[in-house]
């Protein structure tokens, strides 16, 4: 699936997209590397199926108004899962708003994963327990966090690796550059994975940068840059695993560009018909990462109809658990607004908390306030 040139630069054996033309789906991945064993591949497949079902459920909940908004990763499951399964529980993961499937794959409760999007609170899970940072919305700003965390871990003698996800659009931000340069010069045990899904909201990749591959950025920091077919679980997982091992082994950071496609709108609020045609989406549907991996597993005889039915059933119950959890969750407590601004509230905050409590008590109930 890839060849290495002298700069330690790994390029995929096919050119995924010609620079100025509309995004094109990748050519068939030239035989998956043997580094991903079938057990892992099957586990990944299961997570991808469950993840997609979760994503579909979340999109439905957004349409029904149970979520304020939902940025879908439909079609990016090979990245979402391939990345997370390459990490140990002790490693740290830095997702974006787009990466809820990755977060649940990491083992975070699905309802807690969606808290940002239900609008109950900003982050619903405990980052320390899950070693998963809150979904990051300001683009690329989590990249320096990952570098710092990785350096801190090394500083105290742990072999923790930090992995940060971001999108193609985020790579235009200054923080992306600053983080990569800093990581390289300090040989931080960190991995940067860019999900190049072809768009920054409405802006196609070719209008974001003249580069044909984001992996080319790596050379400027003298770190390895890898470009993989982001819809090929085996390619993503093996590339990320190699980069994580490299980081853990003290050989420094790696930049990985995973070329994929955002099948869904940017969020449920977006209208993609304004900036891309349905035919492009259809072409990419033809390169579905789940179907691809299923074929591979069936070829190797580890997936059959029975197992598929069981996996689908698991996905259903996960979606069901998500739906019921979101629907049945308690209302958020307004007192939380003041409780965590500082370790101890200032006297002014304490007074404001009392004021709000009194207002709520006085009113017939929250509904009446405002």
């Amino acid at each position, binding site marked *: 699936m890839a060849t290495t040139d002298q700069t330690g630069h790994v390029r995929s054996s096919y050119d995924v997209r010609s620079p100025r033309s509309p995004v094109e789906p990748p050519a068939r991945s030239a035989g998956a590397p043997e580094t991903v064993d079938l057990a892992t591949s099957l586990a990944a497949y299961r997570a991808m199926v469950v993840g997609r079902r979760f994503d579909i459920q979340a999109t439905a909940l957004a349409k029904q108004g149970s979520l304020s908004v939902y940025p879908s990763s439909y079609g990016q499951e090979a990245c979402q899962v391939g990345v997370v399964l390459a990490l140990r529980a002790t490693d740290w993961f830095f997702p974006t708003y787009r990466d809820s499937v990755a977060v649940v794959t990491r083992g975070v409760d699905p309802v807690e994963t969606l808290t940002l999007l239900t*609008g109950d609170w*900003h982050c619903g899970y405990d980052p320390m327990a899950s070693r998963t940072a809150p979904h990051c919305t*300001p683009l690329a700003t989590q990249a320096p966090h990952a570098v710092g965390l990785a350096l801190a871990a090394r500083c105290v003698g742990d072999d923790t690796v930090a992995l940060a996800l971001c999108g193609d*659009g985020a790579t235009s931000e*200054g923080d992306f550059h600053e983080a990569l340069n800093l990581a390289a010069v300090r040989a931080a045990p960190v991995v940067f994975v860019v999900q190049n899904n072809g768009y920054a909201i409405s802006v196609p990749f070719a209008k974001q940068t003249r580069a044909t591959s984001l992996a080319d950025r790596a050379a400027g920091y003298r770190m390895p840059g890898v470009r993989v077919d982001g819809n090929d679980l085996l390619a993503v997982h093996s590339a990320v695993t190699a980069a994580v091992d490299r980081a853990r082994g003290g050989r420094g950071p790696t930049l990985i560009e995973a070329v994929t496609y955002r099948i869904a709108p940017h969020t449920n609020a977006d209208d993609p018909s304004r900036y891309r045609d349905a035919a492009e989406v259809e072409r990419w549907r033809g390169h579905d990462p789940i179907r691809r991996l299923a074929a591979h597993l069936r070829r190797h005889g580890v997936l059959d109809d029975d197992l598929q039915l069981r996996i689908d059933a698991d996905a259903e119950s996960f979606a069901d658990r998500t739906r019921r959890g979101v629907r049945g969750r308690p209302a958020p407590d307004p007192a939380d*607004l*003041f409780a965590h601004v500082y370790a101890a509230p200032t006297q002014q*905050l304490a007074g404001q908390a009392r004021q709000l409590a009194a207002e709520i008590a006085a009113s017939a109930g929250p509904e009446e306030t*405002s």
Partner: protein
Amino acid sequence: MTAPAQHDTDGTAGIAPGTTLAKALNRALHDEMSHDDRVVVFGEDVGRLGGVFRVTDGLAARFGEQRCFDTPVAESAILGMAIGMAMYGLRPVVEMQFDAFAYPAFEQLASHLAKMRNRTRGAVSLPVVVRVPYGGGIGGVEHHSDSSEAYAAHTPGLHVLTPGTVEDAYGMLRAAVRGADPVVFFEPKRLYWSVADVALPTEVEPVGRAVIRRAGTHATLVAYGPTVPIALAAAELGAAEGYDLEVIDLRSLVPFDEQTVHESVRRTGRAIVVHEASGFAGFGAEVVARICEECFHHLEAPVRRVTGFDIPYPPPRLERFHLPSVDRVLDAVSSLWRDQ
């Protein structure tokens, strides 16, 4: 400040009934781009998509990719590029997609946009408009509802404007584009869809003046942007309770029209400042401080502030507890008489 009032001939006839504030802004950009080819519009998703709030809808189609275009996601470079373009004589209007996403451009804003004219003793002026959709009330997740006007207002060299009505959205944006100085133009997100049946003004008035939206004699409510409708609603309800409230819409935070504010407070003897941003070191503090400095002997009661709490902007399901409400304004109004 800004351009001399001048009559404008290019297609600013009255506009269809039911114009939203977002449409009025779109029309203002359209009319200024027609009026002056030096006006260019760019930012994230402002081209084909027409902006996430559709404020730039149709401009790329109408004026071409040279004059309205999408940029990479790089706010500092977006503003920096605007500065360079203005140095060459263009009049860039840039959009920051959401308030909090203007922060990466803070250095360009504070160290260059605000200072260039002063630094060069007037040789280089930067007629740049930075459009910032701001404030909450739209159910946005974190980083999508900040109110950052106090940062801009404390930065000498910037004009800071924020419309509270559909007419002002149109008129003030046109004036901002024609101005000689950089303007941070704060657009109240939750008013984007507010509707008015109005013929948009055909004159471009210089900005910098506050306006009395409702005359009253008992107390003065000072509001701007998203809290103007709240202050007006409170005044309506207050009337039923026997309070005759004057409502001032500041419109321009910098320059600050203290005459209109002080003259009103000297008449009423009582004042309340209402804004959505956190109160602590917020813009309201400046308004209160000036009133106390300049109207001290006319004050019958302490000036009050009704603002957001001193907390990070809440998540969607809790924002209603944070936002200044009509009830809170009226509670503050009655408190003006309570403590005597």
